[in-house]
């Protein structure tokens, strides 16, 4: 049932043991596109280890880490199979493997870290793991058998509720299945009827959410469900009082809601939760109660060198305030023990240790305007990589978490494709020129097209003109296509920009005709205008075409389809998503939906095009709350090409990963 199973060293990727169960899987595993490779490249390096499942090419891949030895255990199987025992298999394999080969593994992994000078050979490796194949076979068989048995036992309760055929009536020795006790109360009768009915039908459990594994668990729960249900019904259902009889004294008192009787009906309110004693104001001498002043946190303008430890220590303090004296005594001995263990280098990080630190980090990231889901996932990924790791010497858990988090953020922010736009433009123009130089005297090479998409009001047209200015500085001829045919004034806005740009670079080498606007007014089809613009640019010898589209909400399906049509008809070289730096949790939604819509709706033209890069605008409005950059790169995996930080043509910057990282982790 499994296709491939492997145990490898996470850091270097050296495979310690692997097994493929089919010839196709073994060939695939030996190639660069093996499932484990895709797992590492797309999940681990991108930092998406929060979900414990990864799917690619019809394979479902599950994994687990052993962080004390930096090992990863991976199992790959066909996606259509729903194997429930994989998690158990992984943990059992991990436990068994570590137990059996602990000393050898420690030595091997130490040699990969450069710590020991012991000489290994590959023959030694093979010999040391010689018994493992058989053990693994046995383990796998055991777990598969257990899973099969579990499945069978879950199916068995379905037969339990068949009503046994009643014995012949004349037989005095048999006892009836139901008790013959006198039932006086109407409720008892109704309850018994319900119970009988449910047993006959095999009614599913109330609260259908508890379906368990494929609905088979529901049947197991029905007896308890029946009892609680009828019990509840007994308490809630009472006979209705109609108004044809005179109300009694007791009825009158129950129905009396006048104010002097409220103490009978109202329960004492829980006042302790209403007031936070630490935020109480002060009472002045003349008896007037003043509210507390808003505490402006000490601004650290000059403290550039403030330690990043501070954020974590503060987070720990904040969470430790809640844990008062009762915990103090018990932790005294444990702190000494922990301290000793840490100094000797054998303290193992546990979930409990990590929790307060990770919570603090999560809060900190969210304060920096990182979207909540992204902060959750990043911190979870960091935690998963650290659990079980040994922290030694004078490194505290804080510093381990801090380094792991900064590595993770650096990895997410570092682009995986080239962000050199000028090089791509020149390459395309050069290849185009080479192919057409023989045919026509005037070069009719295809121009490089860039499309700007985004929601309303983010600054697409402004930043498009900034990019145009930069391209003009590099002596390209730029055509701006006004494909925003919806918003009033969009074409005029671009006309003003083109006039300004023309005046700015008029003295340069490219001359007057370096930048032009291609527009067809309002109300027309944007895809058609873009197509004509590109054809015009090709005829007239423009180098780059910048296509401005109308802003649209990510939920608006007809507009997203229209955008996808523009993309699929014109096949632009770059699709740049323009987003604001101010956006918080919305960024995740916007980007996922834009990306998904573009890929799905433009897939008819072959491979669906997604977003190729991002441009973050209005950067000058956020000073160090730069979390939007992290959220956006996490969601798409694409790099941030430019950052717009002002309203003039020169306010275009490139992103520096180190700068963002410092801004994110600074207090």
């Amino acid at each position, binding site marked *: 049932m499994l296709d491939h199973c492997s145990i490898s060293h996470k850091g270097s*990727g*050296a495979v310690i043991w692997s097994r*493929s169960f089919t010839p196709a899987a*073994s060939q695939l595993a030996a190639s660069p596109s093996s499932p484990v490779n895709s797992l590492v490249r797309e999940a681990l390096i991108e930092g998406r280890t929060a979900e414990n499942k990864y799917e690619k090419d019809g394979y479902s891949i599950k994994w687990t880490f052993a962080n004390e030895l930096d090992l990863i255990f991976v199992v790959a199987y066909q996606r259509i199979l729903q194997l429930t025992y994989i998690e158990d298999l992984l943990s059992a394999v991990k436990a068994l493997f570590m137990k059996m080969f602990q000393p050898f593994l420690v030595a091997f992994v130490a040699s990969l870290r450069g710590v020991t000078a012991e000489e290994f050979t590959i023959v030694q490796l093979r010999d040391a793991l010689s018994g493992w194949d058989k053990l693994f076979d046995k383990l796998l068989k055991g777990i598969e058998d257990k899973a099969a048995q579990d499945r069978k036992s879950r199916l068995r309760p379905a037969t339990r509720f068949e009503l046994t055929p009643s014995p012949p009536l004349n037989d005095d020795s048999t006892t009836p299945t139901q008790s013959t006790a006198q039932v006086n109360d109407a409720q008892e009768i109704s309850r018994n009827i319900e119970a009988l009915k449910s047993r006959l039908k095999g009614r599913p459990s109330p609260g259908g959410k508890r379906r368990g594994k494929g609905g088979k668990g529901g049947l197991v729960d029905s007896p308890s469900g029946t009892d609680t249900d009828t019990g509840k019904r007994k308490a809630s259902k009472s006979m209705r009082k109609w108004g044809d009889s005179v109300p009694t004294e007791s009825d009158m008192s129950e129905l009396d809601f006048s104010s002097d009787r409220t103490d009978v009906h109202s329960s004492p309110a829980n006042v302790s939760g209403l007031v936070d004693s630490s935020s109480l104001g002060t009472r002045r001498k003349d008896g007037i109660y003043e509210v507390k002043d808003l505490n402006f946190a000490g601004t650290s303008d000059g403290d550039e060198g403030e330690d990043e430890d501070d954020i974590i220590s503060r987070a720990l303090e904040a969470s430790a305030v809640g844990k008062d004296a009762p915990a103090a005594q018990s932790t005294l001995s444990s702190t000494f023990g922990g301290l000793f263990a840490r100094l000797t280098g054998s303290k193992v990080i546990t979930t409990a240790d990590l929790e307060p630190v990770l919570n603090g980090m999560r809060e900190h990231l969210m304060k920096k305007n990182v979207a909540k889901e992204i902060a959750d996932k990043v911190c979870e990924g960091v935690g998963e990589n650290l659990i079980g790791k040994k922290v030694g010497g004078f490194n505290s858990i804080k510093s381990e978490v801090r380094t792991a988090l900064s590595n993770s953020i650096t990895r997410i922010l*570092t*682009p995986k494709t080239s962000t050199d736009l000028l090089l791509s433009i020149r390459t395309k123009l050069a290849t185009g020129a080479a192919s057409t130089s023989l045919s026509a005297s005037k070069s009719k090479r295809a121009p490089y097209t860039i499309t700007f998409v985004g929601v309303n009001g983010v600054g697409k047209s402004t930043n498009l003109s900034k990019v145009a200015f930069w391209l003009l500085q590099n002596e390209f001829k730029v055509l701006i296509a006004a494909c925003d045919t919806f918003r009033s004034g969009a074409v005029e806005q671009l006309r003003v920009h083109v006039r300004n740009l023309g005046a700015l670079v008029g003295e340069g080498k490219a001359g007057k005709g370096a930048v032009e606007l291609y527009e067809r007014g309002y109300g027309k089809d944007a895809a058609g205008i873009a197509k004509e613009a590109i054809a015009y640019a090709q005829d007239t010898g423009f180098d780059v075409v910048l296509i401005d589209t109308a802003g649209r909400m990510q939920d608006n399906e007809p507009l997203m389809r229209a955008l996808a049509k523009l993309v699929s008809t014109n096949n632009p070289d770059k699709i740049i998503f323009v987003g604001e730096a101010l956006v918080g949790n919305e960024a995740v939604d916007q980007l996922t939906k834009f990306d998904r819509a573009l890929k799905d709706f433009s897939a008819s033209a072959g491979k669906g095009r997604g977003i190729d890069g991002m441009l973050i605008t209005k950067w000058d409005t956020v000073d160090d709350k730069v979390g939007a950059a992290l959220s956006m790169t996490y969601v798409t995996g694409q790099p941030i090409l430019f*950052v717009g930080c002002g309203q003039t043509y020169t306010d275009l910057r490139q992103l520096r990963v180190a700068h963002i990282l410092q801004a994110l982790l600074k207090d």
Partner: protein
Amino acid sequence: MESTDTPRPAQLPITPLLPFSAAQISLFAAFIAAIFFVALVYIRNRTIARRGSAILLVGPSDAGKTAILTSLSYAGALPTHTSIQPTITSIRLSPDAPAPIKLIDVPGHPRIRDQFTEYLPDAKAVVFVVDTSTIARNGAAVAEHLHLILHAITSLPPSVTPPALLLLAHKADLLSRPPTSTPSPATLTLATERVRTVLERELEKRRIAASGSVGVEGLGDDGGDEGGAGGQSGLGGLECLGEGGAFSFSRWDGGAVECAGTWVKVARLDLGESGEKGQLSEKEPAEGEDGLEGLRRWLEELS
């Protein structure tokens, strides 16, 4: 002179200037002298141009760097997956080598390949490993990576001796016909030539693009960052000696770059007892044999 019968004047007790005994003072002086010498040696070590001692394996993803590392360290290449972190081992080039050399393998994935800059000051040699069979297709991406390395080497401070650079045309056995037989020297030369021409062409394109463009300022640079020789990310480092014409490895500013062709045979760990899991063809090289001669020879010439 009168006879020296008169008793000598009583020995006055030597009142020391400090309330320590002589032994303690001499001990203290020796301690100070030791500190002084240690400081002297340390300062001397700092000012002399340091030469690193490690060998750095860099290159794009799937080039075979970890396979080379395991082959050199464990006398047989292990099958590997994509690396996430740098791996450090120590190897002995030959059994009678005086000291083991540190070998550092840096992952090649674009998101994490910048880690090599941490190890560069320590490096005596940098080996850029390239997959010869796919270089024709992804020449531009490989050239970008190589450009980064070249830029980093030329930006090292002058107190550090720049490391020597070797271009390794790896997986040369995939070029030979039939694909799994031991490659001949002609195949190795073919591999090196192919890698050299493709990379020189791509790097020349990058040099032209970088030299003539106006870049965009980096965020938070505050105008204080001069950057390299223009270019978007300030990457320079592709200047050549002499007339400054087309880029060529033999005339590179930071030292001549040599090329060598290599291959390794990756061991199959699942062969174990049941040998039917994999079939070895007859012409395949025996286990433990690898084609890293070019690399070993170069490393020996270096030291």
